[in-house]
C-alpha cells in the first residue's frame, strides 16, 4: 500500500505550494505608495496644484470638457450644494477600485471639500498613490457658494487662499 500514500503526499505539497503563492500575492500591498515622499516634496516646491475660483469659473462657463470637478464631501453635503457638473466621491471611498479607472483617465480632476484643506490632503494622498492630473479648488464649496454663486464676485483680495495671512502683524507686535 505505498502508492496511495505517495499520491496523498504529492497532493499536500501541491496544495501547500498553491496556498503559499496565493498568500504571497496577497501580501504584495496594492495600497503602497508609488511616489516617494522626497519626490513629491520637490514637486510641491516647484509647482502649484491649486486652481483659483476665477479660473474654475472660466472653465465651467466655457464647459471645458478637459476638466472634471470632484466633490469629496459626504453625499448629504453634495446633494445640498455642489459645483456645477461635479461628481461626488466621498473621501472614505476615494481609493476604492471602482474609481481607479476614473482617476487614471486623461481629464484634469479638480478636487474640492468645504474649504480646501481636506481636498489638499486628498490631493497629496492620491498623488502619493500614483495618480496624476489632479488639482485643488481654492476656497472649496464654501467660498464657491458664498462668493462665486450668490454674489458673483470672487476676488475679494484673494481670501480664498488658505495660506494668505489674514491679520496685521504690526497689531500684535505693537501690543507687546
Amino acid at each position, binding site marked *: 500500500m505505498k502508492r496511495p500514500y505517495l499520491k496523498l503526499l504529492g497532493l499536500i505539497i501541491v496544495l501547500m505550494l498553491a496556498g*503559499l503563492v496565493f498568500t504571497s500575492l496577497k501580501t504584495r500591498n496594492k495600497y503602497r*505608495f508609488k511616489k516617494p515622499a522626497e519626490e513629491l516634496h520637490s514637486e*510641491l516646491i516647484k509647482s502649484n496644484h491649486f486652481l483659483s475660483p476665477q479660473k474654475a469659473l472660466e472653465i465651467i462657463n466655457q464647459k471645458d470638457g478637459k476638466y472634471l470637478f470632484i466633490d469629496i464631501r459626504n453625499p448629504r453635503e453634495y446633494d445640498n450644494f455642489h459645483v456645477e457638473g461635479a461628481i461626488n466621491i466621498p473621501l472614505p471611498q476615494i*481609493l476604492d477600485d471602482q474609481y481607479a479607472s476614473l482617476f487614471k483617465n486623461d481629464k484634469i480632476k479638480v478636487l474640492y471639500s468645504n474649504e480646501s484643506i481636506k481636498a489638499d*490632503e486628498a490631493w497629496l494622498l492620491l498623488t502619493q498613490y500614483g495618480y496624476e492630473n489632479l488639482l485643488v479648488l481654492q476656497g472649496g464649496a464654501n467660498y464657491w457658494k458664498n462668493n462665486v454663486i450668490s454674489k458673483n464676485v470672487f476676488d475679494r483680495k484673494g481670501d480664498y487662499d488658505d495660506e494668505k495671512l489674514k491679520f496685521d502683524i504690526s497689531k*500684535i507686535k505693537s501690543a507687546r
Partner: protein
Amino acid sequence: MSTRVILTIVFISFGLIAAILPEKDYSSQELDAKQLLHEIQVENYMISADEIAEALINEDPEYQLIDVRSEEEFKQYSLPGAINIPFEKLFDEESLAYIDQIARKNVFYSNGTTKASEAWMLAKQKGFQNNYILRGGLNNWYKTIIEPNEPASADDVEAYYEYQARLGAKQFFTGQGAAQSSGAKKKARAPIKRKKKKMVAGGCS
C-alpha cells in the same frame, strides 16, 4: 520513490516558495495609502489654538512648535519658542533630527492649515511619529487667542470659560486685553495656571 526523494522534493519546494515570497519590508513604519486615508479621516493630528496657548503658558516642554513658512515670514512674526523649518528644507538632514524623533510632539504651523498639513502628510508618508498640526494656523491663532470673540449667550458656561481662558492667554501673549470686557477685568489672568513645583511630601526636604 523512496522517502529520501520525497523529502528532497519537499525541501526544494519550500526553498522555491521562500524565493517567490516578496521581500519583507522592514521599514515597516512606512504607511500605505489606505492607512494614511484613515489618518486624515480620524484627524487625530489637529491641535487647537487653545491647546497650544495653554501649553505655551504652562511652558509645557512636551510641545515643539515648528514654523514651516519661509525664513522671512518667520522673522517677521512667529509663535513663542517656535523653530523655523521652511517647507523647502523639510527633508534636510538638520530638519530630520527634529521631525523624525519620538521625544516631543512637533506642532507644524503656517499662515493657514495647508502648508503645515502638506508637511505633515509627507512626514507621515515616511512613517515619522509625533507630528501634529496647529488647526487653522496663525490666522486662527489670531482669531481665537489675540482677538477672541465674546460668546453671544451669557448662559453658555463652557463658552464663557473658554472666553475667559482666551482673554488670559491674550494678555499673556500680548501684554494687553484685560480691560476689554467688563467682567473679565479682574479675572483675566485667573485661567493661567502656572505649574507649581510640587513639594515632595515627607523625606528630608
